[in-house]
């Protein structure tokens, strides 16, 4: 990945709708050729942020640079961006070809240049046979391809995707996801991609920005966000099935730290604390796939439990147990699926756990 210089730089960006503050002094730098995904629940401001970058919303404070140029007051067309929308937003009365060429015709490009660019985009996206059709005669996947093509022909520096796959069915979604990834590899453009789907975020992103309440919670590579979430919100938002959270407290015993919940003691010798902890209430987080199931006693922590519910999902099985009095889920391969009420043993290494402050939710 050619990461030379900053492509999009958002500095101290704020946006208020009346008294409601949607984005709060937000900073984000996107490197040249980078694929950044803005991930968050609905209403977190991720689409709003994208609209601000596109110039479709007037911001309240701050500034935006694209390719080193201050575009804060620029019209969308002068920002060097192309945008793909969730609802495709194809012009219904125009053929695919006219849809693709509309921006170029507005810009007054010569005919040969327009034809050349459309041919290139149509080839990349494999929509050549569709060029003379109206959008209403296309399937959802084809429409979204045309919408991507409309951004492609404009030869822009930055692609903005606003939940482009959310209107598609699951199968098409995974197909187009791969296509977008291939497209990014081929074009090497900067891409900013908004989604609420964590799979899309994990698979596509160079870096993910997890947002909540108009604030970026964590901006990091997907693996880092997954394995070392900075707070309880990020930990809970990513991962399906969700991370196990156990409310308990931290205690120090003979120089070693323990996480105590009822009569369960989890030794934390292998856990890497962010800073020197203090005894008190805390939340222990453990992903279901990081728990070993019926595999001996060679783990720093082991416990016995009874199976409550079994959820087979085909590729693997989710097992619900009780650890002490707390619900706890474990992911096991489908060959080892236990039966209800079986007595089983689990084990894990607290190295893979995440500990959070009970009050602030921040990682400890």
């Amino acid at each position: 990945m050619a990461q030379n210089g900053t492509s999009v730089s958002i500095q101290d960006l704020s946006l208020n709708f009346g008294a409601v503050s949607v984005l709060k002094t937000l900073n984000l730098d996107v490197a040249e050729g980078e694929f950044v995904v803005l991930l968050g629940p609905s209403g977190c401001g991720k689409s709003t942020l994208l609209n601000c970058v596109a110039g479709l919303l007037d911001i309240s404070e701050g500034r935006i640079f694209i390719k080193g140029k201050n575009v804060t007051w620029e019209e969308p067309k002068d920002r060097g961006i192309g945008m793909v929308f969730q609802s495709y937003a194809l012009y219904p009365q125009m053929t695919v070809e006219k849809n693709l060429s509309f921006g170029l015709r507005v810009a007054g490009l010569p005919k040969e240049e327009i034809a050349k660019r459309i041919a290139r985009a149509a080839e990349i996206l494999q929509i050549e046979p569709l060029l003379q059709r109206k959008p209403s005669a296309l399937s959802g996947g084809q429409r979204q391809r045309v919408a991507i093509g409309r951004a492609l022909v404009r030869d822009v520096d930055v692609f903005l995707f606003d939940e482009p796959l959310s209107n598609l069915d699951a199968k098409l979604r995974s197909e187009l996801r791969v296509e977008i990834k291939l497209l990014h590899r081929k074009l090497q453009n900067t891409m900013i991609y908004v989604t609420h789907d964590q799979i899309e975020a994990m698979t596509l992103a160079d870096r993910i920005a997890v947002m909540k309440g108009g604030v970026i919670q964590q901006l990091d590579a997907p693996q880092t966000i997954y394995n070392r979430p900075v707070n309880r919100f990020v930990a809970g938002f990513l991962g399906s099935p969700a991370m196990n959270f156990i409310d308990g407290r931290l205690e120090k015993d003979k120089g070693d730290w323990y996480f105590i919940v009822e009569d369960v003691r989890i030794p934390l010798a292998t856990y890497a604390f962010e800073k020197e902890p203090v005894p008190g209430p805390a939340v222990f987080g453990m992903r279901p796939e990081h728990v070993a199931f019926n595999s001996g006693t060679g783990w720093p922590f082991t416990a016995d439990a009874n199976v409550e519910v079994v959820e087979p999902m085909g590729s693997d099985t989710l097992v619900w147990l009780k650890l002490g009095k707390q619900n706890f889920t474990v992911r096991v391969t489908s060959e080892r699926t236990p039966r209800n009420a079986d007595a089983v043993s689990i084990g894990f290494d607290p190295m893979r756990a995440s500990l959070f402050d009970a009050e602030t939710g921040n990682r400890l």
Partner: protein
Amino acid sequence: MTAGQITAIQPVQDAPDQAGVAPFGPKPRHVSPGRIGIYVFLVVAALFFLIPVYIMIVTSLKGMPEIRLGHLFSLPAEPTFQPWADAWLHACTGRDCNGLSPGFYNSLKITVPSVIISIICASINGYALTFWPYKGANLLFGLLVFGAFVPYQVVIYPLIIGLSSVGLFATLPGIIIVHTIFGMPILTLLFRNFYAALPVELFKAARVDGAGFWRIFFSIMLPMSVPITVVAVILQVTGIWNDFLFGIVFAGRSNWPMTVQLNNIVNTTTGVREYNVNMAATILTAAVPLIIYFVSGRWFVRGIAAGAVKG
């Protein structure tokens, strides 16, 4: 439950109903007496409301001697189109005996520009209010909609003063302006609601593509506005064609629309009252809105079907 506990599943047994037929395939349709009653009632009601139309048509095809016999419902013994020709060309309004035709052309001259201008203004209004919200846009829209509820009589006198002070009272442009103004609230409401229902992404995409206010309007929005424009045309044509009040007040004697002329023909008191000519004149005047309904009704439905913009 484990798989071992499930024994063979019993096939469902179907008991025949009273008629001895087990339900299978499409449900049979029955014609019930109640349904027949409803249709009979509807047909009778429709015929009843068509009686005036029938009387108008047969009377307009009779000669005066036959009408004097007083058989209102009888078909014309010697059908003649002379009353129609008279109504169109020779019927008298006061001292002028030119028939309805000048009124028809006046109505055309009033209706066509008024419809076109009011629809153009209203579509731009609706588009701007929806996609280019400016400070006070909502207030303006509220005032505009409120305008739809102002009784015409209240504003006639101020309008007369206003128009005559700029020299447009009792002129063709004057009456066109009046119709345009009074069409604005309801038409703007119509267009605004239509545009508000379009996906806003369409507008955003066009802006990213670099199109400005007019380009988006003419290239994107207007081509999609066919269904709502058809509705607006129906509303305006029938409304303006049928208008009597504004026509008689604002058009001026030489521009009186067909409705005013019709009134004058029917109410001319000198000589014999020519019922057949009156009937023919009335049908002629009503013909235009009727034709609009019949012709555009189809377009209306087609337009709505074609307006499935989503996606």
